[in-house]
């Protein structure tokens, strides 16, 4: 993660470095895209013209602060974009001009610039070379350094066939030789899209952002009306107002705080995803993530650790625990599978058996597991044989090596085996044949899927947020149910085929629910495309990455949960700052209206509850507060408001308390403090 810009905090230096960009954005052709701030800019221009004609300290102070309001808004956006630009630079460096070794149909190689590669071309890449374009490995296996994209320095294995065949242009082969079939045109590659994304060039307004913009524009119109019509009323009252004061009132009333920060919030939201090593292909997908009702999670790797692990040894009657543990351990010494290792670990942790290595038993003969025998074991020095494996296979071995009279306690073994299977576990039977005498079954090892730590709590959290979790597994329903119960998911889909998955997604969507899922295989692609939020693993196939609307560079399926939270946080930040912005207006009215009219209607001075020192100072203080609020909230806009998974009700009351009530109170205090300072200025 060394080469990534850290999210969340605002480096004060960025304010300075982003200033030129902020000034460049004053171009009206750029400003017009943000209606609220555009109105402020027009107001600032108007105020400047008026101040030139009739200059005075008050008028020029207002002009300066109106321009600062616009600059601060642009600064917010520029800072948010600036962070993306830094990342884009890093990525561009990875995308240096490469020469591709293209394979011709006759098998000969020719060197061509990477930019000229066509979809379907075959290229050879060897150790030390940079992969010239996105594609699938069709021949060979190699370790690849993908740190340019993922920031992760440990190399990953890419091999032909299967779900680990995709490679990304700009990454570097560290060992071996592979042949890659190019799947993306130059210029549209993953790294190109990533650059466009973090730079914000491809940023389009999301549905909720559009809706919010409409609301802000209409609020602006309402306040424009209220301000414009105020002049005839003022004239009627015999207190005609200088235009510059009306402009100040207008700028204070229209929702500048949220208007200024809206696009920064959006950019920062995408940026936060990038900090989590997730690339969203559209902002729409990020928003959809906040709306997700159903999460489809693959069991293996997401809910459970990838492999089954030994959880207990169950001896048959007449055999003591330690004897079974000892036999189980001996039979697994040479077993390098995760299951085998877990048996050795269990024997050590639960039964205190010292770990033994193969070297301690030089004359022992280890029996490898094969698909035919379906068991493994060891033949010890002195004739003792131990076997462990699938129940049917081991029991047959016991029968074959028995004396024909005592077949061992098969009935009891059967019961234990059935009990373990019924609980969703996998039974491994352990048997021995002593040097003398017939073989017998010693007991059963209970292998089970181990649910990752903390999953139950996360699913409880999800439930509180109103999200239903569904576990997808190829296991039989019995096994699936047991794991589902242990992990605390709401539902499961057992013996799932890609078609089942698709059907489930469509069923959920028909009920109006939004579905999120992760996937990596080519057969996941249709479901990834169908899901509202489809997160493809970076290790997955190009088809999967193409189909999903997000790619997780860490290939961590649990990330889906964080993506949902980031999506929600984005919306909450917008909503909270909108509320804050509107709530601010109450205090501004109490500052400006008495300032404008207390001269003609003395009674209105009762509304000057902040007891501001003079009308000019009151108006200027309100304008300054309005501008400073933008700067003060830039860090919050970039970081996002604090988000804790909880029910909608408690979240609403919390945010309404902080940003609604706080939004009403804060400006009363802020404007008063600014007034105390402003009133000291000479000329006020």
């Amino acid at each position, binding site marked *: 993660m060394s080469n990534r810009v850290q999210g969340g905090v605002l480096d004060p230096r960025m304010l300075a470095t982003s200033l030129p960009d902020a000034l460049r954005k004053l171009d009206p052709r750029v400003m017009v895209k943000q209606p609220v701030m555009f109105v402020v800019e027009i107001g600032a221009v108007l105020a400047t013209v008026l101040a030139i004609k009739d200059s005075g300290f008050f008028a020029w102070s207002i002009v300066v602060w109106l321009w600062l309001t616009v600059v601060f808004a642009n600064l917010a956006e520029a800072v948010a974009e600036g962070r993306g630009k830094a990342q884009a630079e890093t990525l561009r460096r990875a995308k240096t001009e490469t020469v591709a070794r293209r394979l011709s149909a006759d098998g000969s190689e020719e060197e061509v610039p990477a930019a000229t590669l066509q979809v379907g071309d075959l290229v050879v890449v060897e150790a030390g070379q940079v992969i010239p374009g996105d594609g699938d490995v069709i021949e060979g296996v190699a370790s690849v350094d993908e740190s340019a994209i993922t920031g992760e320095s440990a190399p990953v294995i890419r091999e032909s066939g299967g779900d680990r065949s995709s490679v990304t242009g700009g990454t570097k082969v560290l060992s071996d030789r592979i042949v890659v079939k190019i799947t993306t045109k130059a210029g549209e590659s993953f790294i190109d899209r990533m650059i466009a994304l973090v730079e914000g060039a491809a940023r389009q307004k999301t549905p909720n952002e*559009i809706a919010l913009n409409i*609301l802000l524009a209409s609020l602006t119109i309402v306040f424009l*009306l209220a301000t414009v019509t105020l002049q005839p*009323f003022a004239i009627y009252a015999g207190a005609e107002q200088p235009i510059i004061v009306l402009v100040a009132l207008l700028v204070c009333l229209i929702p500048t705080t949220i208007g200024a920060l809206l696009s920064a919030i959006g950019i920062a939201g995408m940026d936060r995803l990038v900090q989590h090593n997730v690339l969203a292909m559209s902002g729409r997908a990020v928003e959809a993530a906040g709306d997700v009702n159903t999460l489809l999670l693959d069991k293996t790797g997401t809910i459970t650790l990838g492999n089954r692990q030994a959880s207990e040894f169950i001896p048959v009657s007449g055999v003591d625990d330690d004897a079974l543990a000892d036999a189980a351990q001996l039979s697994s010494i040479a077993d390098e599978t995760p299951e085998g290792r877990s048996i050795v670990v269990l024997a050590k942790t639960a039964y205190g058996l010292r770990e033994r290595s193969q070297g301690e038993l030089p004359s022992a003969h280890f029996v490898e597991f094969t698909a035919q025998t379906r068991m493994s074991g060891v033949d010890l020095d002195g004739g003792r044989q131990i076997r462990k494996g699938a129940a049917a296979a081991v029991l047959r071995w016991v029968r074959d090596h028995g004396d024909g009279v005592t077949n061992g306690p098969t009935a009891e073994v059967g019961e234990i085996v059935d009990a373990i299977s019924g609980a969703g576990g996998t039974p491994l039977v352990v048997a021995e044949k002593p040097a003398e005498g017939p073989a017998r079954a010693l007991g059963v090892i209970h292998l089970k899927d181990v649910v990752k730590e903390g999953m139950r709590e996360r699913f409880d959290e999800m439930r509180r947020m109103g999200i239903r979790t569904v576990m997808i597994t190829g296991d039989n329903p019995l096994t699936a149910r047991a794991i589902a119960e242990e992990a605390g998911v709401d539902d499961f889909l057992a013996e799932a085929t890609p078609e089942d998955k698709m059907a489930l997604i469509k069923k959920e969507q028909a009920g109006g629910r939004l579905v999120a899922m992760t996937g990596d295989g080519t057969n996941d692609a249709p479901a990834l495309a169908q899901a509202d939020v489809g997160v493809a693993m970076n290790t997955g196939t190009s088809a999967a990455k193409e189909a999903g609307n997000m790619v997780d560079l860490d290939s961590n399926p649990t990330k889906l949960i964080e993506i949902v939270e980031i999506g929600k946080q984005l*919306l909450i930040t917008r909503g909270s700052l909108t509320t804050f912005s509107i709530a601010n207006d109450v205090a501004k009215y109490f500052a400006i209206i008495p300032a404008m009219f207390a001269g003609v209607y003395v009674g209105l001075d009762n509304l000057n509850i902040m007891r501001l020192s003079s009308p000019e100072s009151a108006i200027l203080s309100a304008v300054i507060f309005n501008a400073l609020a933008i700067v003060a909230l830039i860090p919050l806009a970039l970081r996002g408001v604090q*988000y804790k998974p909880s029910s909608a009700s408690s979240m609403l009351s919390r945010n309404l308390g902080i940003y609604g009530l706080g939004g009403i109170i804060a400006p009363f205090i802020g404007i008063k403090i600014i007034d105390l300072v402003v009133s000291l200025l000479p000329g006020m």
Partner: protein
Amino acid sequence: MSDTTAGLLQTGLLIAALAAAYRPLGTWMAKTYTDEKHWSAERVLYRCIGVDPDADQRWPVYARSLLAFSAVSLLALYVLQRVQQHLPLSLDFPGVVPDQAFNTAASFVTNTNWQSYSGEVTMSHLTQMAGLAVQNFVSAAVGMAVAVALVRGFMRSKTDRIGNFWVDLVRGCVRILLPMSVVAAIVLVALGAIQNLSAGTDATTLTEGFQRITGGPIASQEAIKEIGTNGGGPYNANSAHPFENPNALSNMFEIFLLLVIPVAFTRTFGLMVGDKRQGYAILGAMTALWALMVTIVTWAEVSARGTAYEAAGAAMEGKETRFGEWASALFAVSTTGTSTGSVNSFHDSYTSLGGGALILNMGFGEVAPGGVGAGLYGMLVLAILTVFIAGLMVGRTPEYLGRKIQAREIKLVALNILTMPALVLTGTAVALGLNKAVAGEVPKDSILNPGPHGLSEVLYAFMSAANNNGSAFAGISVNTEFYNIGLGFAMLLGRFIPIILVLALAGSLARQTPVPATAGTLPTHKPLFVGMLVGVVLIVAGLTFFPVLALGPLAEGL
């Protein structure tokens, strides 16, 4: 019994009566608008109009039917006034002059019932009964139809049909307004309101002057005037006139009538969307606003201090001694909160803060509890706005009753909320800002009380017109071409722009696939949401009208 005790008892009685009517009336109205069967009398009407009552309409068709119906009504009412002298029961009144006839036609077709005339000396019995009274029914039924169409938007999914305007119109009249009016008219007669077709009784006044006291079918007009939240009284003095509103009991009954449908409509809404709690929430917000304004106005009137008030014993200028301050304030808030506009006291004579509160009460957009139908759809629009802001704050695309509130919906809502303030503020600004004469009169010169009170008067007039309230602040001569035509357009635009937008909203909601509610969904039936809705109503209206209120009532009262 002290005034306070009597006032509180009256308010308590009113609330109890509304609570008793809530369930049966709300259920009956829900049944009316969801019934699959047609009554035979209704079938006859459908055949006369030539519509197929079983064919549901898309929203543009629904809107076109509504606009066509209203346009024909507008024209018919205009013509009827212009030629009334040639028709029976003319009372020898001349035809109404064009600008006033337009104003009156617009006023009654939009359920406003703004009256720039004195009924007893301008309108013939025929105009009153065949013109104005008919509009009292149908314009009310139109408002209810729009509300029901919007509710259908929440009920239905994946359809472009929002009901049949003609069926909603006919049923609203036949099954709800007519039966209620008959019963209410009989009760009013029993309470002492008059009901005849007398051309008038001649009387000699104490000063030997001559006076003709016009009679008429008053009780029946009074019933629908309140039930349909119309407010146009046959007498200029409106519900302050003893023939319309003879005593304290009839006064309470009239307040009950003007509140009962808007209140019970929230139950209709809850029943139709299949979640009664949603109806309670909307009712809760309406009640909170109403109670707040009743408190403010009553406080302003009762606590008024000044030489005039002390000489009279109380702030009784413009109030009837048979009602007193409490019942007058209760009536005033209820009538301004329901877009009724009938008055039992003169709002112009309220204390400046009390009068300002009445203006603000209309400025909420007539949602506390609002006119028949109009109150419900107005509040639902504000609820959608609230949901939008609140929904973002809980981290989801905002949704209300399972419908997503996105760009299209928020655009319709925003335009809707913009319309009324735009009409009020520009109307008032033009009236006060024009220094040139319009048709011989400078609009400003109509003001009888200069200073901030004059501003309040003009503001009140445009507020009343754009919100289709119809009550007058008085103290301003509005029977000029400028006001007749200006207010006429304010009424038409203030009525039909929101209606079209609401019907479009209904269409857009009905098309959606509802999103199922989960723990992550913002609950819209809990006190927190109700509180936020009330807050949004207060803030939207407050922020829009604070400057102008500061220069009118606040400047005068602080």
